[in-house]
């Protein structure tokens, strides 16, 4: 009998109040179950509607490990289909992005499909007469995913046809997306500047955990951000502070700063650092931007929008959004010990170019495979991925500032160095891992 397959109780037992079992990070069976259950029961980010502005525009990606294609259908809606020809299994859409016109055409036998997946035509169709073709799976075309929801141009899907609704799953956490959108004087975002792709030899959850880990920057990033601050101090007096230093410096703020900035958690594993303050709070203003914002929203509202400086918002299971610097990081699971990290950037439509320039610089110096910051993060993930195989210890501690009363609290705010958000993620992990798991009897 397998260790976890068909054993929801065994899966639940991996998550305790203040610790989680190492198997979450290293066990291939558990990884497969995550792909089968967790990534099928939850609402997973697929892409942004601005990536597919015109009919037939598509982009390919994965949901969990499932190959999917997101496409702008002929009725202008966005569809998400499994990227698999129902005939022989070939991935129908081959490019990362492109335009397929009014239909997809499989490169193997030229079967064609409408952009909602329905079968359009098959060459030499007569050969299927009286073969029961109409009732077989192939005639159903490319399969759509279970459900799609587009929220302010952010496209999410749930692979399973049944399950938690989009609204119930995200609840008030959508306020981070709202804030990022409202930072555009036109209330519109556009994916811009390309995507950085960074391969990590570690489990995807290490990256998600790290997003709200506020006790590591001053340690792991002393070497980069600390050096940047030191080199800058040697510059002749009166030299204007470079953008890069402004972006780097807050990484080595004190523990007290991170404690004070606060953490807020919502239900279902979502949450964010940076409630009262954040490392993104003190960037220089972009000339003309404030006036644009006031013209659109009025002074009070503009102040409110720009004053909301949330640091990292985790949308469980596998993305992180930064409203004030317009980035979205996606942690794509490949294997128990392999994760592709994509870092996307957005243009605030109508805002000065300087903001996109800053966003791109931030992304480059923090999230690129050449990043001095990323190198030290990846080093600790990789060491953890190897270290977790040690037999001397079986559990990972997430007990910092644990409070027995925290369970079941939605929309709770606490000390910024608490590991409450990590615990929140693991509780959601256990919930959505087992929601569709049928118990097998021994």
């Amino acid at each position, binding site marked *: 009998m397998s260790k976890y397959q068909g054993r929801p109780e065994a899966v639940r037992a991996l998550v305790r109040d203040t610790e989680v079992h190492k198997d979450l990070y290293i066990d291939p069976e558990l990884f497969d179950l995550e792909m089968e259950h967790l990534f099928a029961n939850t609402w997973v980010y697929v892409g942004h509607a601005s990536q597919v502005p015109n009919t037939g525009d598509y982009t390919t990606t994965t949901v969990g490990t499932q190959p999917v294609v997101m496409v702008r259908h002929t009725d202008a809606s966005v569809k998400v289909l499994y990227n698999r020809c129902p005939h022989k299994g070939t991935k129908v859409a081959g490019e990362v992005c492109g335009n397929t016109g009014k239909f997809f055409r499989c490169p193997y036998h030229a079967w064609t499909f409408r952009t909602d997946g329905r079968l359009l035509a098959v060459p030499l169709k007569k050969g299927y007469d009286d073969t029961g073709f109409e009732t077989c799976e192939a005639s159903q075309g490319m399969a759509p995913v279970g459900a799609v929801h587009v929220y302010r141009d952010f496209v999410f899907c749930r692979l399973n046809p049944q399950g938690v609704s989009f609204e119930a799953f995200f609840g008030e956490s959508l306020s981070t997306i709202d804030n990022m959108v409202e930072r555009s004087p036109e209330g519109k975002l556009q994916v*811009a*500047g*390309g*995507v*950085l*792709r*960074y*391969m*990590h*030899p570690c489990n995807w959850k290490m990256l998600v955990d790290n997003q709200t880990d506020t006790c590591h920057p001053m340690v*792991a990033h*002393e*070497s*980069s951000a*600390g*050096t*940047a601050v*030191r*080199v*800058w101090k040697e*510059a002749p007096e009166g030299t204007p502070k*470079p953008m*890069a*230093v402004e972006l*780097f410096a807050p990484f080595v703020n004190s523990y007290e700063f991170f404690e004070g900035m606060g953490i807020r958690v919502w239900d279902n594993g979502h949450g964010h650092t940076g409630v009262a303050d954040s490392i993104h709070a003190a960037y220089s203003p972009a000339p003309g931007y404030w006036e644009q914002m006031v013209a659109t929203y009025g002074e009070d509202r503009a102040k409110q929008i720009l004053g909301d400086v949330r640091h990292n918002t985790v949308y469980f299971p596998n993305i992180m959004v930064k409203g004030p610097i317009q980035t979205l990081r996606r942690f794509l699971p490949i294997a128990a010990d392999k994760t*592709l990290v994509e870092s996307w*950037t957005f243009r605030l439509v109508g805002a000065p*170019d300087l903001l*996109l*320039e800053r966003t*791109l610089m931030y*992304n*480059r*110096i923090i999230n*690129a*495979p*050449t990043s*001095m910051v*990323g*190198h*030290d993060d*990846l*080093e*600790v993930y990789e060491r953890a991925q190897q270290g977790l195989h040690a037999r001397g210890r079986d559990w990972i501690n997430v007990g910092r500032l644990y409070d027995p009363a925290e369970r079941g609290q939605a929309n709770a705010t606490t000390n910024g160095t608490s590991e409450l958000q990590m615990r929140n993620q693991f509780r959601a992990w256990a919930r959505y891992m087992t929601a569709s798991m049928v118990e097998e009897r021994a």
Partner: protein
Amino acid sequence: MTSFSDKQLIDFVYAEARLLDEQRFDAWLDLFSEDGHYWMPLAPGQQDPRLHASLLYEDKLLLRVRVERLAGARTFSQQPRSRCHHLLQQPSVEQADHEAGTYTLRTAFHYVETRQDTQTLFAGWATHELVTQDAALRIRLKRVELVNCDAAFGNINLFM
């Protein structure tokens, strides 16, 4: 204005790569003009370093941070350290303005970076935009184009 022969220009590019292979980073940094940049585009043929992402686009200040960080006691990702090796095709002088003292060279390369048991091969082309300052050549722009610049990479720790 001091004028440089093709051989001197080509030797400059070879010497630059050798400083990197020998990890003489401070001497390497001195080869850049004060307004110099090191650029690794993310997209093939990319023209814009500002409003499009790059793998690297760093001025001298950031390059100095990078060099000092490599020597830092708490640079955990460089314990143990990376090593590198450049294999260059003979550079070609693409443009030479002896009056202005500016030169452009293009060099195909294979670059190997190693750390612990992993060795990674990169291939591409480097373009050097050189200027003459105080009778010496300085790098105003080193542009490193990887043939697979848009691939998903692991850590790239040193300089190509």
